[in-house]
């Protein structure tokens, strides 16, 4: 087969056809995967909310509200059991991680104590900082059931009450920073 000549018209037509076909194909792919992607994202978030809060029977995802505190915007997911508030899940973050941002989901009970925390996203060093994940070590368990009112949310090296992950003081500090952010936001009007 003879190659097509590289004339201006030929090139324009070819590129036009190719990009048009590609965009149509991508449009279809996007439509096709839109629903499953939303479901997957929702499932991941709900799983985190479920983990950090006690039993509830509303849809916290639909009652989401946000609150801007000190230039940071945090998202709140209130959970209710028969219309009574049983806890609030707060999506919080810190940029003090050893490498990149860390995102946490913190569950706070109406009395202000922390129910549980899970890590949504992090890029900490495997084997060191990633021990903040529940599956990797017991680090996050020490936060369960404490009330930051009488528990200093900073690592022991800094005079606080938190046992840092061995050799990962920076990651531990960042974790505390994120939890603190959630708690402060909760106190400063995030509570509803």
């Amino acid at each position: 087969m003879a190659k097509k000549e590289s004339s201006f018209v030929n090139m324009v037509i070819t590129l036009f056809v190719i990009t048009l076909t590609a965009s149509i194909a991508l449009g279809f792919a996007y439509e096709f995967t839109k629903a499953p992607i939303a479901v997957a994202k929702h499932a991941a978030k709900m799983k985190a909310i479920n983990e950090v809060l006690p039993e509830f029977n509303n849809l916290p995802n639909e009652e989401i509200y946000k609150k801007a505190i000190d230039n940071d915007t945090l998202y709140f997911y209130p959970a209710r059991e028969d219309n009574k508030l049983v806890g609030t899940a707060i999506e919080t973050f810190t940029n003090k991680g050893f490498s990149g941002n860390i995102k946490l989901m913190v569950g706070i009970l109406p009395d202000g104590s922390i129910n549980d925390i899970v890590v949504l996203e992090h890029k900490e060093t495997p084997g060191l900082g990633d021990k903040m994940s529940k599956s990797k070590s017991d680090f996050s368990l020490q936060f369960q059931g404490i009330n930051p009112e009488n528990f200093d949310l900073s690592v022991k090296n800094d005079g606080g009450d938190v046992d840092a992950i061995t050799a990962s003081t920076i990651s531990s500090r960042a974790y505390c920073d994120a939890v603190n952010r959630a708690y402060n936001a909760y106190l400063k009007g995030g509570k509803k």
Partner: protein
Amino acid sequence: MNQWKNFNKGFFRENAVFVLYLGLCPILGVTTSVINGVGMGLATTFVLLMSNIVVTLVKSFIPDKVRIPSFIVIIASFVTIVELLMQAYLPSLFNELGLFIPLIVVNCLVLGRAEAFASKNTFTSSVVDGLGMGLGFTMALFFLGGVREILGSGSFLGFKFIPGDGILLFILAPGAFITLGYLIMLMNKINKKTA
């Protein structure tokens, strides 16, 4: 052309990673475990196969001067499709690989095969070439991921057989380079014997 030879060249004689040294950036980044490595490898294989097929079908309609932009658009479309599919059906793998999937577009292996092979060969040869190169790439990522996971985390396919932490270095980037170096050394030895 002998199709069997055409297929297996991707594994040994022209292995993308160990012999041609193509596409090293994503493979060094993702091979912290076998699952990640193989996931990346299969995603690349899919893109490679599809782009080889499309390129070989349309090769005679594309004027020479715009062939590279055309190939890139074709490849990028397939990469985006892979990204969307993975996000929808394999969200946990996507979380691990997410950053590296768009990088398949600039993986020299994919463009290299489109330019050097699919645009010059028949449909069958291009399919075989795409499959062979892609699976050879996957094999390389499997070994790299396997060694790094065993040494670095003391586990294989997520199954932990050594309690505690492994040798952290192998999970980090320098470990990827060191492992790759030794695997290349092994590959050279194998290729020397069979040649």
